[in-house]
């Protein structure tokens, strides 16, 4: 039976020796059509959504594109803009008057900063990017961190100018602190050394740093032109407040996070109260506090300028948020890391410095970056206390007779600038998150 079967099979066997040529896929399954079918019209609901979206996009663009692209770039005032518009396009057509941006570009970016010194904020920004690079990219050599440590003083000096000896005298306080710590530990033990490390530099800053800087400056005057804070404005102001806030709040935030994780009852409770009070109240209230109330809390007679007050307030504000981010990082570390550090016989500070914080901070970086984005956006609130940030300038510009009545152009420009900065930062943070995730797998 099987034979017959095999025989008959053999008789009728046909084996193809060569491959058939590939056939074109059906029209509906290839190229643009397939993509459209799969991505836009896969179901009735999807088709409706697609049509609706196309309509929305068309409606928005048809109203906006002409206004944007027919915009006028060369005029000295809004009146002139309108004349040019009527001349070019006839009466009744609405077009943008971008000339306000070209006319007031300097103010929107640098405020009243002297125009011959624009290189200083630009250089400061480049230096800042260089300084945070080793923090953000772990591949870079660790020695660059020394530059990062020095950068706040360099940036301060570049932006505000004045004698170089001021920032140096202040920086010297940290070297003194380090020396005190090194010499004191063998003599009075660690706790005493820490207290001395805190107390000695503060005494130095309070009583010695100022006169010292003055004396050296008298002997060897090195300095660049001083620029008062009142001259800061526009996007530069937003950057300075945002960056200063985040840099200064990092150490404070880490300390607060450690405090909140601490077993010491009083320190824990103080940290919790501080963090919750700061986070429970909106930034705008804190800014008003900086503007209206800080003078009440300072020693009588002391008075320093609004921008520094704002930076202090913003620093305290973001330190509470950073503390929560870092706390998340600390909590995310496996318990074994803490126990491992203890079993090696490291004391609290050593284990924090060498084992816990490096890991916790690394996983906190995306959170820190998004805190920074939030803070950077929130710098716009300073307009309510009279600082001329970009939105503040949009009001001041519209108060001049030349540009009274300009509206959308300024806001679109400001929005676009914020979008570019914040979006690139958030992309970076997402990239970092992906990278960190693979590390754990």
């Amino acid at each position: 039976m099987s034979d017959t079967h095999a025989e008959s099979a053999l008789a009728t066997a046909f084996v193809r020796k060569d491959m058939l040529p590939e056939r074109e896929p059906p029209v509906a399954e290839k190229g643009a059509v397939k993509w459209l079918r799969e991505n836009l019209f896969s179901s009735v609901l999807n088709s409706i959504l697609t049509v609706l979206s196309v309509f929305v996009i068309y409606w928005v663009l048809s109203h906006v594109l002409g206004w944007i692209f027919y915009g006028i770039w060369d005029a000295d005032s809004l009146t002139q803009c309108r004349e040019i518009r009527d001349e070019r396009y006839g009466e009744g057509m609405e077009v943008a008057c971008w000339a306000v941006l070209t006319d007031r570009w300097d103010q929107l970016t640098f405020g009243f900063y002297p125009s011959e010194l624009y290189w200083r904020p630009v250089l400061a920004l480049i230096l800042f990017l260089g300084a945070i690079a080793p923090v953000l990219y772990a591949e870079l050599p660790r020695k660059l961190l020394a530059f990062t440590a020095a950068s706040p003083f360099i940036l301060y000096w570049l932006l505000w100018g004045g004698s170089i000896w001021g920032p140096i005298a202040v920086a010297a306080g940290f070297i003194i602190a380090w020396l005190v710590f090194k010499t004191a530990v063998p003599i009075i033990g660690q706790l005493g050394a820490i207290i001395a490390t805190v107390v000695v530099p503060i005494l130095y800053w309070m009583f010695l740093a100022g006169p010292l800087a003055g004396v050296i400056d008298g002997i060897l005057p090195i300095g660049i032109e001083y620029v008062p804070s009142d001259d800061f404005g526009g996007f530069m102001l937003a950057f300075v407040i945002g960056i200063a806030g985040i840099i200064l709040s990092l150490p404070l935030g880490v300390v607060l996070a450690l405090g909140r994780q601490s077993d010491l009852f009083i320190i824990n409770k103080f940290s919790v109260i501080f963090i919750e009070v700061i986070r429970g109240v909106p930034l705008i209230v804190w800014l008003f506090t900086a503007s209206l109330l800080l003078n009440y809390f300072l020693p009588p007679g002391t008075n320093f300028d609004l921008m520094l007050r704002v930076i202090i307030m913003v620093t305290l504000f973001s330190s509470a948020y950073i503390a929560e981010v870092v706390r998340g990082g600390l909590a995310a570390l496996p318990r074994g890391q803490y126990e491992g550090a203890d079993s090696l016989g490291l004391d609290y500070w050593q284990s924090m410095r060498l084992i816990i914080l490096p890991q916790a901070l690394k996983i906190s970086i995306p959170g820190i970056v998004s805190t920074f984005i939030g803070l950077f956006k929130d710098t716009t609130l300073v307009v309510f206390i009279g600082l001329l940030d970009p939105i503040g300038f949009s009001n001041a510009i519209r108060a001049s007779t030349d540009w009274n009545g300009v509206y959308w152009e300024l806001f679109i420009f400001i929005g676009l600038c914020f979008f570019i900065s914040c979006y690139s930062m958030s992309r970076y943070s997402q990239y970092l998150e992906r990278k960190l995730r693979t590390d754990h797998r």
Partner: protein
Amino acid sequence: MATYTDPPTESFRLSQLIYDTRYRSMTIQVVAFILVMLALVILARNVVINLGALGKDFDFGFLFNRAGYDINQRLIEYSNDSTHGRAALVGILNTLLVAFLGCIMATILGVFAGVLRLSNNWLVAKLMSVYVEGFRNIPLLLWIIVIFAIMTESTPQPRDFRGEDAEASMLLFDSVAITNRGIFIPAPVWGDGTLLVVAVFLASLVGIWAFRRYARKRQEATGDILPVFWVSLGLFIIPTLAVYLAFSAAIARDQYPLVAVGAEQGMTLEDYVAENRNPAICALPSTAGVNLSSALRGLDQRADILRVGSAAELQASVASGDCIIAAMPPDMVDEFTGAVDGVEVATLADTVDRGRPLQFERPQLAGFNFEGGVQLRNSLIALWFALSLYTGAFIAEIVRAGILSVSRGQTEASYALGLRPNRTMNLVILPQALRVIIPPLISQYLNLTKNSSLAIAVGYMDVRSTLGGITINQTGRELEGMLLLGLFYLLTSLIISGVMNIYNNSVKLKER
């Protein structure tokens, strides 16, 4: 065998405070405590000295002084004769209102955008990405200003509604007007028989609750699933509506006479208001007042409705001249013939409808603006939209992450058990996703509430603008004002996070 000896009982030495770990933590805490207290004392001392130098004191008495300024949106009675404290209260309520509305809408928008961003429709997913990234990366303040401006520029002015061939028209049978001063919607007014309708409504709510209980019991016992949704919906609407309609049919067309101060007997309303323009009116029940004011607006008159609760109040208002036209039940008219407490009154020829148990007062164009109904001011809507859109973008990301965090196997397992897609969503996916979503959602709600303090950018009178703005500015009490403001926000934040944490605990995985 080891011999244990007692540790040497050495006396306490001062250096142990530093070197001995048993005492060291106590030392550190005491030092920290002293330092913090010292700092607080110094701050307090500075405040006292500085206040003294400026000749100011620390006193909350200003809260009881006359405020002198007006607030447009007030949820409670307020006029410029009220106190600063009351102005602050009006502001607090406004803040809470916009925060509440904002949280609801932000959640809806966020869920919507988060789900659509995962849609397999490329265009929709991209549009949602544009929305989310656009709102996340541009400051909220800018959005608030821009949305406010878009709303005022793109909606018609009230006077565009005027005339024969008006440029704009009202929606939904002339009951809703969208203008650039806000959206005017009908306002509910309670008339006679309201109590009955409300009682029926409450009874049907109890009915729904009982039915749901029964349905669940039955499902657990037998596995049958009753159409809970449709039955609930039916119970929710039908009894109340039936009673309302029946009652309306019975009383709505009753005619109530009008009594006017200083009128001649049998005068028409039109003749009367020709002499007494924009009259103040009062009525029993309130729905008759609504019908009267609507009639007056038809005559191009504005009418101030004085709310009265009883016949005695009505009489007193007429006698004192607070209202000059009164609508009332026919059996009360006798008391009003001739004179009320010496004020000459007479019955007009016109009458008004008694009105339904619940009637909606429609907005009507009168004078410069729409009158009647409820005005949702542009400032409220702009702030509400801006806050919801902004927070919604953040919530969308949270929702997306929450949905992605539930593994695909859960859906497949649920299908394998034979659950339908919507039940899979309700019973399997959502409960798991919610656990991931809720903690960050709480902090978004907190952010929204705090961000509502930007209200001043659109002139919405929240607590920051009243207590923290005009009041501080007029009284010069910045220390007291900011302190109260900070306390209010702190308290609100703590309450919101407390309530949400309770909820969070209830949906949390119950671990051993």
